[in-house]
C-alpha cells in the first residue's frame, strides 16, 4: 500500500548499508534524484543492480556507495566511457568493486523471473560467449521435451527497486509512458519499491492498456519534478545531452569529480537544490 512521502524519508526508510538495490530506467526515466539522495545519506556497501549503469551509477560508485555491481552495459550513452566505473574496476578506487555481468537479454529475463516468483529463467543466450565462465549466476538447463540445452539464469530479487515515472495518483497508482524499459519487472521482482514521479495528480487518466503499477505493489511514492534529469521524462522534458557530455570531463579526474559532487550534491538539500546549484554555476560561467 503506497505511502506518499519525501524522497529523503523513503530512502532512509528502505535503503541501508549493504542493501541490494535495483535502480532502473532504460535510457528514459532514470531515477537520478533518488541516486543523489542515496549519496547524500552516505550509504555504503550497496549491491547496485542496473542493466545500464550510466551517469547515476558512475556517481554512486565514485562516491563509494557500492561494493558490488550487477549489470549488462556500463557506459555514457552517446558519449563514451564511465570514468568512475572504470576507475573502480581497474584501480579499486575509491573502493574495490566486485562485478557480476550479464547480457541485456539475460538481465531482462532475470527480472522477469523475479517478478514471476520463479527461481530462474531460461533463454537462448551466451552461445559462444566467454561471459558465463566468469559468472556463477549463469548456468544451463536441458529441455525435457527436445533435449536442447539452453542458458539458465538466476532470478533477481532485490531488496529495493527505485524507479522514476511520470505520474501517480493520490492512492499511489503509478503511470509509466513511452519507453517503459524494465521498470515494471524491477518493481515486481523487488521486496520493496520507491517510485519518484513528476507529479501527483487526482486522476491518473491512464489509457486502458497503459503500463500502470497498482498502488499496492509500491511502498513509497515521492513527488520529485524533474527527478530524471539529466535523462528525460516523456511528455515532460528532454534529455540534457550537454550535461551527459560535460560529465565526461567532470568524471575523468578524481579530484574534479569529488569537488563537483561536494559542491552540487553533498552540500545541497535535495534535488531542487542540486539543480539550483548547477544553474548558479552555469550563470557564473556564461553570465
Amino acid at each position, binding site marked *: 500500500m503506497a505511502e506518499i512521502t519525501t524522497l529523503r524519508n523513503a530512502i532512509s526508510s528502505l535503503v541501508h548499508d549493504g542493501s541490494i538495490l535495483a535502480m532502473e530506467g532504460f535510457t528514459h526515466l532514470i531515477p537520478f534524484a533518488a541516486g543523489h539522495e542515496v549519496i547524500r545519506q552516505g550509504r555504503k556497501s550497496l549491491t547496485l543492480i542496473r542493466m545500464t549503469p550510466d551517469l547515476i551509477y558512475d556517481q554512486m560508485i565514485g562516491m563509494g556507495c557500492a561494493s558490488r555491481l550487477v549489470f549488462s552495459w556500463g557506459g555514457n550513452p552517446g558519449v563514451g566511457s564511465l570514468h568512475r566505473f572504470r576507475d573502480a*574496476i581497474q584501480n579499486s578506487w575509491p573502493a574495490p568493486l566486485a562485478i557480476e555481468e550479464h547480457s541485456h537479454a539475460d538481465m531482462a529475463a532475470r527480472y522477469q523471473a523475479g517478478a514471476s516468483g520463479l527461481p530462474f529463467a531460461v533463454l537462448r543466450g551466451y*552461445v559462444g560467449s566467454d561471459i558465463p565462465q566468469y559468472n556463477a549466476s549463469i548456468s544451463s538447463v536441458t529441455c525435457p521435451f527436445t533435449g536442447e540445452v539452453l542458458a539458465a539464469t538466476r532470478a533477481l530479487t532485490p531488496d529495493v527497486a527505485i524507479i522514476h515515472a511520470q505520474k501517480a495518483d493520490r492512492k499511489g497508482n503509478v503511470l509509466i509512458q*513511452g519507453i517503459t524499459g524494465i521498470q515494471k519487472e524491477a518493481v515486481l521482482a523487488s521486496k520493496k519499491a520507491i517510485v519518484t514521479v513528476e507529479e501527483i495528480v487526482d486522476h491518473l487518466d491512464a489509457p486502458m492498456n497503459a503500463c500502470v503499477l497498482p498502488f499496492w505493489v509500491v511502498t513509497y511514492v515521492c513527488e520529485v519534478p524533474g527527478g530524471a534529469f539529466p535523462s528525460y521524462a516523456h511528455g515532460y522534458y528532454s534529455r540534457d545531452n550537454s550535461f551527459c557530455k560535460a560529465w565526461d570531463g567532470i568524471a575523468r579526474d578524481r579530484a574534479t569529480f569529488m569537488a563537483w559532487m561536494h559542491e552540487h550534491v553533498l552540500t545541497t538539500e535535495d534535488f531542487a537544490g542540486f539543480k539550483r546549484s548547477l544553474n548558479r554555476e552555469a550563470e557564473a560561467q556564461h553570465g
Partner: protein
Amino acid sequence: MAELGYTSNEIMTIAASRRLADGMVCFVGIGMPSAAANLARSLHAPEVVLIYESGTIGARPTVLPLSIGDGELAETADAVVSVPEIFRYWLQAGRVDVGFLGAAQIDKYGNINTTVIGGTYDSPQVRLPGAGGAPEIATASKETWIILKQNKRTFVEKLHFVTSAGHRPGAHGSAIRGRGPTVVITDLGVLTPDPETMEFTLSALHPGVTVEQARAATGWELKVALHLEITPEPTAAELAALRDLYARTEAAHGSASTEG
C-alpha cells in the same frame, strides 16, 4: 581522403547503408549502425523496420538518436514494448533479419570483444562497457553485420575476451540460429567470411584505399578475396542525405552521435 570529397566515416556509413534492402527487419545498435540504417531508410529502403533494444519497433526517427532509447524512437514507432519483450518475443524468436552491431575489437572469425582489454578479467587494463544486447543479437538474428574502424587495436589476432560469438569454430553448439556475422564494414573496405574457413577476408576496398593499407590496419594476416571489388563512390544523393541527417541531428542534439 579529403581529396575524394568525403570522409572515411562517410564512405563506411554509406557502404553499410547500401546493403540494407527495403523491408528488412533490422535490430540496430547505436552509433554507426543506427546512422547507416537511417540513411538507408531515407534513400532506397523507406520500409526497413528498425528495432532498437529499448523496445521500439518500426521506429522512424527524423534525426539520429543519441541513445537506443531516445523519445523520438518511441514517438515514431509502430509499437513500443518492454525490454524483456523485445529480447524474448522479437529477437530471441528469430524475427530479426539483420543484427547490426558496432564493436570495440573483432578477430578474424568475427567474434566481438566489448568487455575487457589487457590484464585479467578481474583486473583489466581497460574495462569496456560490456555486453549489452550483443551476445544474443549476434546469435539470434538471421545474420549479423559488424561496422567498426579498422586498425591494429580493433582488428586483432586473438581477443582477450569473447563477448559475442562469431564463427569461432567448435564453440557454437546447436543453439546458434542464424548465419552469424556475414560482413564487416570498415573505414577501409568490406570483409566477408571465406565460405570454407569462415575467416573474414577482404572482399572490397573503398575508393583510394590499397590492400597494403588494409593489411597494415589488421592484426591478423589478412587474406584477400580472389575478386576484390572497389566500393562504388558515394553518389551526390547519398552524401547529401547523410550530411543532411547529421546536420539535422546536430541541430536537434548538439551532437552528431556517431560514437557510443
